[in-house]
């Protein structure tokens, strides 16, 4: 099976790989640890304390930014997931050539630099003389999240057996009942994963928000970014820790299998 003795270069690259994985965690762990620092400056340790979480809970500016971000996240994730689901069902009915063309358009925002997408939307809103606010934010985040939702739902929908629709029809379901009782339950996991990931993407978005937010609709990342320009505080570390915790919950909620499928494709195991 495997060669018993590993070659020196294999061992060396193995250690480098482990070091890289540690490198991915050191900054995150440091944020978590320093958020419990009682000191007024982030880097000088002055004993364990949860005071910065108290300060965070009383920060009305940050809390209102949090509310904006949550609203925009829920709205754009819902729109993106619904749009992605409908698109996946529609694309299954297209011929090969049209399907390739449509998916080309659908995944376009994934390859265009986000800053260009933001500038482009600003040009449209400027031409229409639309006020920047919640609506423009949601539309901007919809552009960013829709390809991800479509990617996830398309993958799951493509894995369904087309005979299921026919079986439902043969058993007396009309199209709506077939969708409601067969397709939707089978896609539930993928839809939950798509929604959660779209919400996360929207919630952490800063580039698109820079161009589509208006007065009074500062999102959490925009608020944190402007705070950070004035310097890092332990309070921001406390907020960061909560966001790290939130990531863990999202990854668990979406499920590891879904994540694997989205990021590295397929469920093949190496031969």
């Amino acid at each position: 099976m495997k060669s018993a003795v590993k070659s020196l270069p294999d061992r060396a690259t193995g250690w480098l790989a482990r070091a890289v994985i540690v490198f991915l965690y050191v900054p995150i762990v440091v944020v978590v640890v320093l958020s419990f620092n009682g000191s007024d400056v982030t880097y000088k340790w002055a004993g364990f304390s949860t005071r910065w979480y108290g300060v965070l809970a009383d920060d009305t500016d940050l809390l209102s930014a949090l509310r904006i971000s949550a609203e925009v996240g829920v709205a754009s994730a819902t729109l993106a997931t619904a749009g992605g689901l409908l698109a996946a069902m529609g694309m299954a009915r297209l011929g090969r050539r049209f399907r390739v063309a449509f998916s080309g358009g659908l995944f376009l925002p994934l390859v265009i630099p986000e800053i260009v997408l933001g500038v482009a939307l600003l040009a449209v809103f400027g031409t229409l003389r639309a006020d920047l606010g919640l609506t423009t934010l949601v539309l901007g985040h919809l552009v960013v999240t829709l390809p991800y939702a479509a990617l996830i739902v398309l993958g799951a929908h493509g894995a369904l057996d087309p005979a299921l629709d026919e079986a439902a029809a043969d058993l007396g379901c009309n199209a709506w009942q077939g969708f409601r009782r067969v397709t939707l339950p089978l896609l539930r996991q993928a839809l939950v994963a798509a929604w959660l990931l779209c919400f996360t993407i929207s919630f952490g978005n800063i580039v698109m928000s820079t161009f589509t937010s208006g007065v009074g609709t500062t999102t959490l990342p925009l608020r944190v970014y402007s705070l950070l320009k004035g310097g890092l505080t332990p309070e921001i570390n406390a907020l960061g820790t909560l966001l790290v915790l939130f990531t863990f919950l999202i990854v668990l909620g979406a499920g590891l299998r879904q994540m694997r499928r989205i990021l590295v494709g397929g469920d093949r195991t190496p031969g």
Partner: protein
Amino acid sequence: MTVTAPAHAPAPPTAPARRSGFRSAAVTAALLAPAGVTIVALVLVPLALVVRDSFATADPYGGIQGGFTLANYQQLLDPVYLKVFGYSLGMAALNTVVCLFLGYVVSYYLAGRPPQRQGLLLLLIIVPFWTDFLVRTFAWINLLSPGGPVNTLTDALGLTDGPTRWIPSQGASFVGLVYAFLPTAIFPVYASLRGVDPALGEAARDLGCGWWRVHTKVLLPLARPGLLAAALLTFVPTLGVFVIPVLLGGGKHELVGNLIVTLYTEFRNQPMGAAASVVLLTLMIVSLAVFGTAAGRLRRKAS
């Protein structure tokens, strides 16, 4: 579909088939409409507007006046801006090379683990990937502050003596960029390597290939589609970053992303901002074309 045809009285096949064909096309169009309208109205039309704006003259307030001029692009040829483009391309190239190298090393390591361990290790890379971008950036302010964790460590090792100022700096900015893009680069490379039969490497070894040749002659060519995808996801996106150079680099050495944000929000020169965006878009199209032809050549070679 069969649901629409009455089951008890089979009609001549042509008429209902055509009617249901029409209905079916209408249903398909309705299903595709929300996503299609979003892409056309919020991506394609806006991009066309940016291209138009990049050739427009500015009104006294920096808005779009209309007309046709190449002045915005000519202004971008000013050495100040050329320097930003040159610096950005250099940083993006370096970031891509480092991310591809480390991405390959990690993917090779992952692909060699037993399947169950692979799942666990992959999870270890997924979590940082989804962690908030700003958190991953300001985490480095903690680490690199004078008297911070890294400084304490180097003091203990005798490499530094007392508080050392590493931030803001170009180096800090670069570390931030690598850290931001590394997980993104690992996934596609791993995806292309994990399908590779481990017996291939062993066969090459048995045939007398050394470690280096096993990689350059056997594994790297197999990983090439993944490496190309990783480069596509790293190179141009790095050019558009603006948060990292501000927070970790002190804003002195700008990337194209900073230039665009500054032109829009501070200088309020929309036509020039549009021109810089079009340049970035063009770079993306060029790298997509290169990616497309390279991938096509790989496929032809494989078949």
